[in-house]
C-alpha cells in the first residue's frame, strides 16, 4: 500500500462514509451516512420479501389504506354535520307546532 499517512487517513475517513453492509455482534447492518443510499432492486417480476411478508404487497396495502382513509374522510366530514343541523331544524319545527 502506498500514500502518506495523511492520505491513508483521509481515504479511511472517506471509506467510512460510504454506504456499507457490515456485522455487529452477529447482527447484519446496512449503513448509510451523508447523502448516499443503499438500494435493493429486483427485476420486474422479482419480489422483495421481509421474512414472510411481500414488501410490494405491503406497500400496496399502505396505499389502499391511504385511499380508503381519504374516502372515509370525504364521506364522514360534511354528512354528519349536515344531518345534525337537519335534526336540529326538525326539533325546532316540532317545538313550533
Amino acid at each position: 500500500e502506498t500514500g502518506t499517512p495523511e492520505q491513508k487517513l483521509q481515504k479511511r475517513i472517506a471509506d467510512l462514509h460510504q454506504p456499507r453492509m457490515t456485522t455487529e455482534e452477529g447482527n447484519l447492518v446496512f449503513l448509510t451516512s451523508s447523502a448516499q443510499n443503499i438500494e435493493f432492486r429486483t427485476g420486474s417480476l422479482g419480489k422483495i420479501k421481509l421474512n414472510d411478508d411481500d414488501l410490494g404487497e405491503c406497500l400496496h396495502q399502505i396505499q389502499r389504506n391511504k385511499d380508503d382513509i381519504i374516502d372515509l374522510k370525504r364521506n364522514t366530514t360534511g354528512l354528519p354535520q349536515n344531518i345534525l343541523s337537519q335534526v336540529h331544524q326538525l326539533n325546532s319545527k316540532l317545538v313550533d307546532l
Partner: protein
Amino acid sequence: AYKLWVPNTSFDTASNWNQNRTPCAGDAVQFPADKMVSVLVRDSHAISDMLLPLDGELVLASGAALSAAGGDSDPACNPGAPLLFRNPDRFSWLDPHLWSSGTQAPGLFSVDAERVPCSYDDVLFPRDGSFRVALGPGPNPVHVRSVSAVGQTFSRDEDLTAFLASREGRLRFHGSGALRVGSQACTDASGCVCGNAEMLPWICASLLQPLGGRCPQAACQDPLLPQGQCCDLCGAIVSLTHDPTFDLERYRARLLDLFLKQPQYQGLQVAVSKVLRDAHTEIQVVLVETEHATGAAGQLGHALLQDAVAQGSVLGIVSATLRQSGKPMTADS
C-alpha cells in the same frame, strides 16, 4: 490420527483470486456464475461491482464489511480487468498437497497414498474458514472414521449423508465420489494399513496434475517405487515382518532418536508405515536422500538390518530385507 484440510475459499485469501491478490478499493470482482461456494469475508472491502454466484453465500465474520467504492479509489490499486474468483471446484479430496497431518517430526514424511486421509483417520475441516471439496473421481467410496465440519462431527453415515444433502453440505462438498464415515480407529500398536491402495491412480493423477501428469525423472539408476508412492525415488526401502509385540510408534521414535540424529543421516527423510504387499502386511521403511545422493540411505538401510538382527526379539521384528536404488546419475548422463 487425524488429517486437516488445508485450502480455503476465503475472500481474503490472495490465491483465491486470479491476480493472486485480494480485491482493493474500486475493484470489480466476479464469482463464477455456476459454481456453488461458501466464501468467508473477514476484512473490509470497498468494491465497485461484484457479480455473485447464482447459488452461494458470502459469510460475514464479525467486523467484516462490504461497501461501495468511494469516489477516489486506492491509488495503489490499479483496477483494470475485473478480478476473478478462481474456480472453487478445483480442490480434490484425493490431492495429497491439500492435507496436513499436523505436527510431523522433522525427518519424517508420509508416502503419497497416506497423505490423503486413511480409513482410520479423523478428518478435520477448518472450523472458522470456508472451504469446498471435490469428492472423487474413482470407483470406490472414501472411508474415514469421522468428518468434522461447520462445528459438527459426523461419525455415523446417516448423519453425514443428511449433512451432505443439506444446503450447508452442498455448498462445501461436490463431485461424483461417495464419502463414508464410521470405520474403526487404528487400535493395533503394530499399525494399520491406510486403505488407499485402490485410490492410488487417482491420488497420483491429482498429485501430478501441476506437472502435466508425469513424474519427474529420478536422479539415479534403478530407482525404487515404494508402496503408496506415486513416483520412483532414490534411496532405500527396508521391509520388516513382525510379531504381535511390534510397536510402530516406538519403532518410529527409535529411528528418530537413535539413527536420524546422527550427523551422517541428517539429509534423509524417512517414512514408516504398515503396507500391504503380495497379500501380506509388512512394515515399510522408506529412506530418501532429499538433496544430493550420498549413499547415506543405503548406509542407514544396512544399519537398520543390523539393528533388526541384534534387537529383533525385543522389537518384535521377525525378519528384515533391504532394497537400494542404483548409482546416482551425473548431471550430463
